[in-house]
């Protein structure tokens, strides 16, 4: 049932590309080295370097205008980098025209060919490569079965729903057994329910075919749900690249902490191994001086006086402000004695009033790297 794609590694050359950098598992499949791109006076990418490991699901996350789609188009070959190089499996990719690259793309609005049937859409790449007729029929059927669209082989794309078009676009790309699949916000046109379902199917599909996925999105929840690693792009530069849990729990910059999930930013002062933020203080190693900490709302918890403390626990009293019901949790704005405001996320149970006791653990206050600049 699954497209056998394990054999694609045979097509990769044995010789290692020059200057291999450390990657998650052995040799990287794709290497982006110091790539920059401008359109006229507008610089879209400045000096982006990135390795993608074979079989990885890597998400490029960023707000609109961060250059994520441009990066994808550079890899697909629709744009050329101004400077820098892109290598794939020991081959210089950025000098090849798009049709010579073993890369396929799922486009944001699918870009199915309206004048061809679903079957012919999926067969398009195989025909262009001159695959034998019998094999085309077999592989197209396999690919359509994989995305559960076999029943629609004869249909025109315009007769399909958004989700179905999405599946056909996936099949059309995957049937060519690319080394790398690029996905440009493929789920953004779907409504919320279908979107969640397609996320799950996409993840399953990627495990099944073992093809490396490079996924572009502006939706951090989607990025966290799908990816092995997330590369956060900010104004044409790579802000942080790490596994979803790592990037969420250990954001390196204030931008990352705020973009991936919600957070409280505490601009504190570190003196003699103790961080001070207003009336708060907690043990903190590292360089003295001003430092910014990220404290996730869910890491601040409601406590009762009877709860045991340890050295790491920071206790305080605060007044309940705005309380927003989010279904499974409540988001509460609390004001501390000195007027400082914090966001707290608690399991949703009841409406709180007046003063309550809160606490967080010093280990949950993550020191950010850009603290000194800001």
């Amino acid at each position: 049932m699954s497209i056998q794609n394990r054999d694609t590694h045979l097509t990769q050359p044995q010789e290692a590309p020059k200057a291999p950098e450390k990657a998650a598992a052995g040799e990287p499949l794709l290497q982006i080295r110091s790539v920059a791109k401008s359109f006229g006076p507008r610089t879209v990418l400045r000096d982006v370097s990135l390795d993608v490991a074979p079989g990885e699901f890597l998400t490029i996350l960023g707000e609109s205008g961060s250059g994520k789609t441009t990066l994808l188009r550079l890899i697909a070959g629709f744009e050329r980098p101004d400077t820098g190089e892109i290598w794939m499996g020991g081959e210089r990719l950025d000098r090849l025209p798009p049709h010579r690259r073993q890369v396929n793309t799922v486009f944001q609005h699918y870009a199915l060919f309206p004048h061809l049937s679903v079957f012919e859409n999926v067969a398009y790449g195989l025909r262009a490569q001159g695959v034998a007729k019998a094999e085309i029929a077999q592989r197209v059927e396999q690919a359509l079965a994989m995305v559960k669209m076999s029943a629609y082989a004869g249909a025109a794309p315009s007769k399909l729903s958004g989700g179905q078009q999405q599946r056909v676009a996936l099949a059309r790309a995957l049937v060519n057994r690319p080394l790398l699949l690029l996905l440009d916000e493929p789920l953004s046109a779907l409504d919320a329910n279908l979107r969640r379902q397609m996320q799950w199917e996409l993840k399953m599909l990627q495990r099944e075919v073992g093809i490396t996925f490079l996924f572009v999105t502006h939706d951090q929840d989607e990025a966290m749900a799908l990816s092995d690693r997330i590369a956060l792009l900010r104004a044409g530069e790579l802000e942080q690249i790490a596994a979803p849990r790592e990037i969420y729990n250990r954001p390196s910059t204030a931008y990352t902490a705020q973009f991936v999930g919600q957070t409280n930013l505490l601009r504190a002062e570190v003196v003699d191994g103790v961080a001070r933020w207003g009336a708060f203080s907690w043990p903190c190693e590292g360089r003295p001086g001003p430092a910014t900490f990220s404290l996730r709302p869910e890491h601040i918890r409601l406590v009762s006086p009877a709860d045991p403390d340890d050295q790491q626990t920071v206790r305080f009293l605060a007044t309940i402000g705005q309380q927003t019901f989010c279904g499974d949790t409540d988001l509460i704005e609390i004001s501390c004695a000195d007027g400082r405001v914090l966001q707290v996320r608690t399991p949703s149970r009841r409406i709180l009033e007046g003063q309550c006791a809160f606490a967080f653990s010093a280990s949950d206050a993550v020191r950010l790297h850009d603290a000194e600049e800001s």
Partner: protein
Amino acid sequence: MDLHVSGQSSVRRRFGWLATYAAGVFAFLYLPIVVLILYSFNREGVGGFPPRHLTLDWYRMLASDGAILDAVVNSLLVALAAVAIALALGLPAALALDRVAFPGKALFRRLVLLPLILPGIITGLSLLMLAVFAGMKLSLLTVIIGHGTALISVGTTEISAGLQKMDRAQEEASLDLGASYWRTFWRVTLPNLRLPLVAAGLLIFTLSMDEIAVSFFLIGRDNTLPLEIWGRLRRGLTPEINAVSTIIFLASVGLILVWYRLRTRS
């Protein structure tokens, strides 16, 4: 409530004026054509109003009139050839305007579109001088060249509009799937332009069918239909001409309707 009603009636009154005005304009535009069509069925010919005896005699006469039939064949020939020339040259021009940035592009765009605005007399006269200079004998061929070049602009504008509406991601998808640029043009770009191409062809065809000014300068011995009609008119209005004009009118309306439907569909 009262206010509401009076507001509505004032709207109605204004609409009434507008309708009368529109009806007047339409009458001015189409009444002559209606009269022409009526007379083509009138046994007394162009004399005698209102028509008393309806007849198909003039159409029968038309069917046995060799000169008119020859002219129809000539016109069809010219129109088809003009369509071929204008599309074959208009498509590359439209592609260049849509896809390529080159120095002097703005000038090129204006030059390509110029014949659309240029009086037919100028186009005809200049082509006649060219033909004389090149030592070409005036014939249907010179008319074909005249129509073809004069109507490239129509082909270019229609195809440009189609290209602008086209989803460029489709061509990228084709390249992405391993098809060469050439294959992409044939398999994706051209099929996507099918409707604009047909629409442009129909429009060029109708425009060529009733073209007089350019043809007048470039015609040899074989007349096109409009010139044949014009020639006969100098000898007086005959009901037979009403009949052939009616047929041309209906055919043109039919083609324009098809063109319009294709255009809105694409």
